[in-house]
């Protein structure tokens, strides 16, 4: 009986851990984050959109990346890039997080305060990465 309980508790622990891992691959949703992408597609310099080819992207299609495999792929993209990896390692994870958003043909990656810590504030321009759908090409902006 004890063995069964031990096995059950191990399975429970592992499944919980696995679930946590699965959740951690993707990033939170936040109105501010969506607004930041919308700003890129509508109000930031037009040259940014021309350079990336996002000029036809629709703001209606902006959404947080929720698909686990897409999140893992984006995590790998960040890990493989020294600069972005360093930024990701350097943030205070108790306050800030990385955000993954997408439209029909592009991903948008940036860092910001977690939803629970967000409030309007003055701050420097920060890196904003646009990545094409197959992750073969990316562009970096500061906004």
């Amino acid at each position, binding site marked *: 009986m004890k063995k069964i309980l031990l096995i059950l508790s191990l399975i429970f622990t592992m499944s919980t851990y696995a679930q946590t891992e699965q959740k951690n691959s993707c990033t939170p949703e936040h109105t*501010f984050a969506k*607004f*930041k992408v919308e*700003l890129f597609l509508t*109000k*930031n*310099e037009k040259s940014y959109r021309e350079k990336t080819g996002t000029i036809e992207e629709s703001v209606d299609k902006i959404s947080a990346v929720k698909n686990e495999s897409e999140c893992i792929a984006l995590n790998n993209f960040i890990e493989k890039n020294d600069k972005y990896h360093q*930024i990701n390692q*350097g*943030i205070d994870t108790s306050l800030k997080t990385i955000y993954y958003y997408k439209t029909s043909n592009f991903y948008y990656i940036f*860092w910001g305060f977690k939803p629970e810590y967000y*409030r*309007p*504030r*003055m*701050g*420097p*321009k*920060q*890196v*904003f990465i646009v990545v094409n759908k197959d992750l073969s090409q990316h562009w970096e902006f*500061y*906004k």
Partner: protein
Amino acid sequence: MKTLPIQLLLLFSLLLVIYSCEKEDSIIEQENRLKTVALEDAQAFLSQSWKKNSSGSGNSFITSISEEINYEDITNTDEELAVIPVTTTYKHLQSRIALLEIDGEVQSVVVSLKPFEHSTPGNFSGELLITDIKGNFIKAFKVENNILVIEYIIKNKIYKNYYEDLDKNSSYNSNAKSCEDFAGTEWCIDGEEVIVTAYLPTPYVSLSHMYPTGGGGEESNCEVGCDNNWNPSGGGGGDANLNPEPEPESENCPEGFYQNLEGECIEILPCNTNDEILDSAALQAAFADIWEQSGALNTDIPMESRLEEGGWIVENSGRFGFIPFDSSWSRTPCGINPPANWASTIPDNIVGYVHTHPFYLGEDRRSICQQAEAEYQGGPSDDDYFLLMAIASEVGNFNILGFVIDGEQITSFDFTRTENMQNFNRCGY
């Protein structure tokens, strides 16, 4: 019929006489409220005050009283202000007691000046503090080039020591700076409200500010403004030299320029940008002030020692004014973080907000500002824009403007983010 024109002429003359008499009466009535304190009365007042002080029954604010009594002009009246140099517990301030008889009673205040380094004889810049003779706060002003640009209204009297204690327990070291004591006193201007007052040709102070209980009436044909004013920087009668001797290097700056902390001559003349906010002399002085407070007067100053500064731009009856962000907002070289209740501090008459980026184009600030670009590009960030939109939403006015001041330029922006963005030269402020 022939007598009609004569009757009309007589009637007109009578009316003219009545009008003149009434006007004369009102001036006499006004002037009668204010009277010069006679020399013997002034001496008696001072003697009594000093005795109380020495016996310990008075206050310890005034530490010494000069025997010299000067009489200085008040605008729009023949009466004069009795002015006596004193020293107070604020030893570094140049203080004088000003005595005036109002409605039969001798009223007294202590007017203290702290000139800025760039203040010159005849062109006063500095802080002006008015207290009662016990040292209780009455009014405080900032004067820039003979213009009263800011009036500080203290909502909460919080002492410097409180802030110092607070600062020790804070993860930020900016509180002490933002609670910079006013004119080197123990006063911290907390919840300060700043009003741009009328532009007067010299640093005149209205008697109504000095003696809230009854000084300074109004009359027509006024000499300066429309009430009774006194020039505390030594405009009349007295021999007080309240402007410091210019530093040797200040002499290198021609008129119309001021010397910054680095010894550079900065032009202070208004620069016409065709932007009604930026062309306001009062705001130019405020912008120059927050830029100095940011500690980025040149590129040699370490970036980590600079701080963003800023505040609200308000409009009162067509005049623009500046209200610094509350001192409790934490400042870093890379940003300003308002507290959770930030929206409650937005003034009703807001027309914009301004803050500094204490950097010069091309500077590499990545070591202190996370994720920043390799070379500072200037202009507002998305965060600066989000704040603008949050303010606009709070007050229900999307015409609110944002301004960013950096080492090279001033950038204005609105709800369109980039469409109406404009860069202006600093023009010396």
